[in-house]
């Protein structure tokens, strides 16, 4: 057994740092572990969480119903601050919706095999987050019943959308992102649904069978399947970067001091990854604990994610600093004023909350002990998400409430409807996620198997391999 590291087997060695699947798991034991949530009798905890989430969803429905009935005025918005919690929530959720595809696509392209046991849940999270995000641009318009004018549909008015508007780019970007992520997720699911199909009985067998599309593990299929999956990953990578870039265009391409900044695209993407991974950590810690996935979702996964958070968190912090520098360096009085007022004005509290949660707290991850302590991981990740919500709030509201003409300076106060809608969106998110972990494989079974030592067709003798290669 040669242990010398050559380019050929470098990747393997890197991966042997610490095993991705712990214990003495076999293929079937992996299958069993992952199938457990689907086969076990529903735990009480799940029911409790589900009911809470469901009531949250109810709140969302009520809030939106009231909004449609009364008009956008039920929110705290005004003629100076035309956007506030609505778009803040939108950007917040889109941001969260980035980790999934990022893990699946980018880490896949970089052959980061440790992704395999978390990517499925992350992708699911992505899709649900994007669903939550899509709500807000939908409901924030004054006349929802004509919102379909956003799409280029031939009509008797001979009118078309304005393709110069970043908001329209958003429509295309986010809906594309949603579609592609969903396809990506489903394609990944097919073999595992087939697994469930072959394990379950009765109506479930039928339903799983339906979605398994008759998958029979044929290697002629695997060939095209893997190619398609790779290409999807390759397509998703620029896509995921473009989505938050375009979201940031909503602000970057505008006029307003505090919005009109070229740093936004990279800064938003970093922020998105930042918040996304935080959310993944939160969710995975819970799933791992509830469904006993310790052997599949290992501390190494968490540690890697913590490192990414540390990195992106520092990028975000750098962006904050750079904004101030540019504001000062540009000599543009509006720009200067807006940033001074951010840090010292009526919304200073929001600004400093953001800085604390996003820049200072994540620095704790430099310490390995904290990085590897689930409690610390969980709490810090929560802070990160609070901070990232405030980042969007600060960017949107503080910029709008101190624009060019001092005569038009105003203050924004949220109403209880604002708050209800936001909380409700979490209800929707968790409802979907709970359904997911109950009925679908939260870990990519087939993929995990590929990274197990037994998966290597030449695992036993190298000589044979050499011969096989010679053919």
């Amino acid at each position, binding site marked *: 057994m040669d242990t010398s590291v050559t380019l050929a087997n470098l990747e393997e060695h890197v991966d042997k740092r610490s095993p991705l699947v712990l214990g003495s798991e076999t293929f079937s034991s992996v299958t069993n572990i992952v199938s457990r949530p689907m086969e076990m009798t529903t735990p009480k905890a799940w029911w409790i969480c589900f009911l809470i989430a469901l009531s949250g969803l109810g709140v969302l429905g009520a809030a939106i119903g009231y909004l449609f009935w009364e008009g*956008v005025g039920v929110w705290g918005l005004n*003629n100076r601050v035309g956007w506030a919690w609505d778009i803040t929530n939108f950007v917040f959720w889109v941001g969260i919706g980035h980790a999934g595809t990022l893990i699946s696509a980018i880490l896949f392209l970089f052959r980061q095999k440790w992704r395999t046991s978390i990517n499925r849940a992350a992708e699911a999270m992505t899709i649900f987050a994007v669903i939550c995000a899509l709500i807000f641009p939908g409901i924030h318009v004054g006349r929802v*019943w004509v919102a379909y004018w956003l799409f280029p549909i031939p009509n008797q008015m001979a009118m078309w959308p304005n393709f110069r508007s970043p908001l329209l780019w958003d429509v295309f970007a986010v809906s594309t992102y949603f579609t592609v992520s969903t396809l990506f997720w489903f394609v990944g699911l097919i073999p595992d649904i087939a697994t469930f199909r072959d394990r379950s009985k009765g109506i479930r067998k039928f339903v799983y069978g339906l979605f398994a599309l008759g998958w029979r593990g044929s290697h002629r299929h695997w060939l095209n399947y893997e190619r398609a999956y790779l290409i999807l990953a390759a397509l998703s990578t620029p896509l995921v970067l473009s989505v938050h870039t375009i979201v940031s265009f909503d602000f970057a391409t*505008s*006029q307003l001091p505090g919005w009109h900044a070229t740093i936004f695209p990279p800064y938003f993407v970093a922020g998105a990854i930042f918040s996304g991974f935080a959310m993944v950590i939160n969710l995975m810690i819970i799933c791992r604990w509830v469904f006993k996935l310790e052997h599949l979702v290992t501390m190494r996964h968490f540690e890697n994610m913590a490192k990414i958070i540390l990195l992106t968190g520092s990028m975000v912090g750098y962006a904050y600093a750079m904004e101030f520098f540019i504001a000062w360096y540009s000599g543009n009085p509006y720009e200067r004023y807006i940033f001074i007022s951010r840090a010292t004005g009526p919304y200073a509290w929001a600004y400093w909350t953001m800085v604390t949660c996003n820049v200072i707290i994540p620095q704790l991850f430099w310490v390995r002990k904290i990085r590897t302590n689930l409690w610390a991981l969980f709490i810090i990740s929560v802070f990160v998400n609070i901070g990232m919500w405030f980042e969007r709030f600060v960017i949107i509201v503080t910029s709008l409430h101190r624009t060019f*003409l*001092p*005569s038009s*300076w*105003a203050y924004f106060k949220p109403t209880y409807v604002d708050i209800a809608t936001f909380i409700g969106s979490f209800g929707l998110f968790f409802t979907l996620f709970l359904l997911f972990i109950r009925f679908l494989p939260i870990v990519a079974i087939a993929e995990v198997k590929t990274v197990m030592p037994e998966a290597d067709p030449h695992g036993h003798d190298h000589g044979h391999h050499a011969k096989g290669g010679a053919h």
Partner: protein
Amino acid sequence: MQSENNQEKSGKKYWRSLEEMAESPELLAQMKNEFPSGAAELEVTPGVDRRSFLGIIGASAAFAGLTSATGCIRKPAEKILPYNKRPEDLVEGKPQYYASAGRFGGSVFGLLVTSYEGRPTKVDGNPSHPMSLGATNAFAQASALEVYDPDRSQSVLKKGVAQTSGRPDAKLLKTTLAAAAAEIKATHGSTGGQGLAVLLEAVPSPTLLGLLREFQTTYPKSTVTIHDAAMRWNEMTALASFGYANAHLFHRLEEADVVACFDADPLGIEGDVVRNSKMYATKRKSVDEAKTMSRLYVAEPTFTNTGVVADHRLSLRSSAMGEALLALAVQLASKGLNLPAEVIARGKQVSTANEKWLKALAADLMANQGKSVIMVGQDQRAWVHALALAINSALNNLGKTLVVRSSPLPAASPLHELTREINKGNVKTLVIIDSNPVYTAAADLSFADALQKVQTSIHLGYHADETGVACALHFPRSHALESWGDLVSSDGTAAIVQPVIEPLYPSLSDVEFLAGLMGNTKNSYELVQAQWKKSTTGDFDSSWRRWLHDGMVKGTVGETFSAKPELSKLAQQLEGLGTSPESTSTQMELRLVLDRSVYDGRYANNAWMQELPDSVTKLTWDNAALISPKTAKAKGIKTGDFVEIKLKQDKEAILKIAAFVVPGVSENTVVVPLGYGRSFNGRVSTGTGFNGYSLLFGENRFAFGADVQRVSGTYELATTQEHGVSDYSYDTTVGKEAVESRGVTREITLAAIKADPSLEETFKKFNLLDPKKHKTLLWTKTNTTSGNQWGMTIDLNSCTGCNACTVACQAENNISVVGKKRVLKSREMHWIRIDRYFTGNVDTPDSIQAVFQPMACAHCETAPCEQVCPVAATVHGVEGTNDIAYNRCIGTRYCANNCPYKVRRFNYFNFSKENDADNPLYAMQKNPRVTVRFRGVIEKCTYCVQRINAARVESKIRGEDIIREGAVVTACQQVCPTDAITFGNLADEVDSRVKMLKALPRNYAVLSELALEPRTTFLAKVRNPNPELESSTQL
């Protein structure tokens, strides 16, 4: 969804609201009753057109059956109700214009009323009338809504109880009036009117006053009392003391190079504001060609519009004005002006802290003898007026910049004399013509109690107001747009008041009322004609028609006094005038002022005026106790705190009122605007502000020795600037940002213009980016193609912040009222707002200056709002207008966010629908040419595109592609009393005035460094400081 569609589909508000009208039967009943069968004058009175109304009612009835019959794909069926007989000069959908006149804020001027199918929708100035010259003030604009006041009196009241059950009753009105006349005859016929008193406002109406004389001949012993907020008693007394009996002053600011105002507000709310502003503006506009400008000195206790535009403003308490004027006299005398020795002697006794200021003023006055004027506020004591007149006369200004004219008003006694008589028990019957003394009388008179001592009190009023319900008998009064009348302006020009609509409810005009009380049942039309027949020689009908057409009677009424005053008389005035402690003391002074929005309270039930932001405080829906930051700090008072103002004279009065800290108020002074806190149950006025009259003692609106203390509790004040900020110095820091850091409002001096005519150097400090560098775009502009290219300039040098444009825009463009709660949320809808910035140090009131800047959509050529709209609802018109198609808007509000001027307004709720729910009659004021906006869409200034389109149609029919200069006049431009707003066709090479103005060096674009190339640009404000005082100004 269907319902949504219905409500948003109803483009023309006017029709839609009728559906709603039709649903309230009692309203229909009322409207049907508006038309007494066989009203004789219909045929001969254009505009009063009952059939159109029958049409409307028919229409509404038709709609009533249909509102439910919807739901299919096809639009619901609509009905058309043609006229039965079309009136002579009426063309459906075309406005008709009628010349009339009105009295607003104590000034009489000619009007031009716009009417659609018999609905007056807008009131503008009559261009050919010397007192309006086409402009009006905000009050006149608001009268277009006033006529549709939901709470106007609709029936006879006895002891405050309505005599009709819901349905207004014309017959009852007549019979009750006859009965009242009979009763008066019975009680006073024998005694020749002993114990009979008439109380009326200072209405200079020949017909009314003729009838009054008639009345007095019938009842010789009867007394006449005039009670009016605008009545200048002290000035009259002063003039009388010089032998000018029953006279008033008329100013000619067009002649004045130096104007000194002592507690006077000729450009704001006092006297002939519209004319004064026009004339004042001519002396400011001369800066461009002649490089000359008048100089305006103002001494005042709180910012008035005049004070804001002043070149030099002295913060001085009202009680110190007299002394200041004496000191000025001394200064003048020392410069050789011939004034009575006693005056100088008296003047030497006073010590004033403002010697430098007065010295400079004196020098200016001496240098401009015959070309200067000193104006004194109506609240100043008689001797101050006398002194001012003396000085004016000595300066040889009399007859040049101001003239003494005989007043058309009869010799009458003020209210306190009447009250005394009542309390003595000498008044049996009191006739009150359209006056509300119970609310507006001074507190120490306690007129309400006195009124109870009168056996029969008969009241005529537009509202069943405080007085109306207190009187034994109350008659509903017709609106000025509903009845015939006549008025004489202060310059003597007479005009016929022409009705435009049948009274909405059976009611009486002043003249009908007074005539009726003499048993004369003629209607206003006959009465007015009768009056004018007397004074007409030759063919009456033809001259009558000409008067109606011109909107005025050529040749003036009343004469001017040419005799010079005997200055020696002045000495007596000053005798026994002890040195008043006021000027030096640090005790609080209370100053009560007429409100710029509701005047003396008569517009308190007018939603437009209530929501109109005060010129200086930007306060809506309330008044408040104005206190200077320094004093407030000393007393620990913040904006919104409740304060208690105690005033102890022979009685003690207390008012608990919210405080509002605002720069420019004199130290140790509290200013309370009058007209709020009314107790009559108007659905608009109720719950607005605090009643300042409860602090009014005697005739003078300022009192010394008030006690102001902060008390527990706070009150929400809705301002449209600095929303809800309670920081003392906040508004001046805002001003600093705007004026100094951002160059939003550009202020230069006459000296600077003379030194640097191109202003390139002067403007450098304002330009964040060299204007030459703006044009570097990344792409070539897609130019708009039409031969008409619209543009606007706003001259900050002329603007007096009078708010007329805001109301005019509201009237023209069907802009909704949102109410106090939503103003608090900064959701007000005004398309044109007037930004006000303070500069200077809040701790030294003299250093505080303010500047106005009207701000509306600037129609940028590279409009940032357009590119961000995802559905292309707001795009550029070929004529350079920034269009918005309301029914394409889906309401993302992105455009509003991206608008650097923040001039876009969003319909957060269905405001227009709510307005109509509150009062269906408002719908009748709506301009049928302008879409009424609905929930969820953005709206903003359109450059009055409906007027542009109307003009385009006409010019195209005429066969011209270029629209002529002057064919399109925006509502704001039309109303502006200083012609600060100019709009026109930039592509018109020949005679485009706006093009010429844009070529001036003063012309600049706000935020020019953003390269928005706005079509609305501003002309920099120019102040003309006296070199000797340069240091004390902010420049």
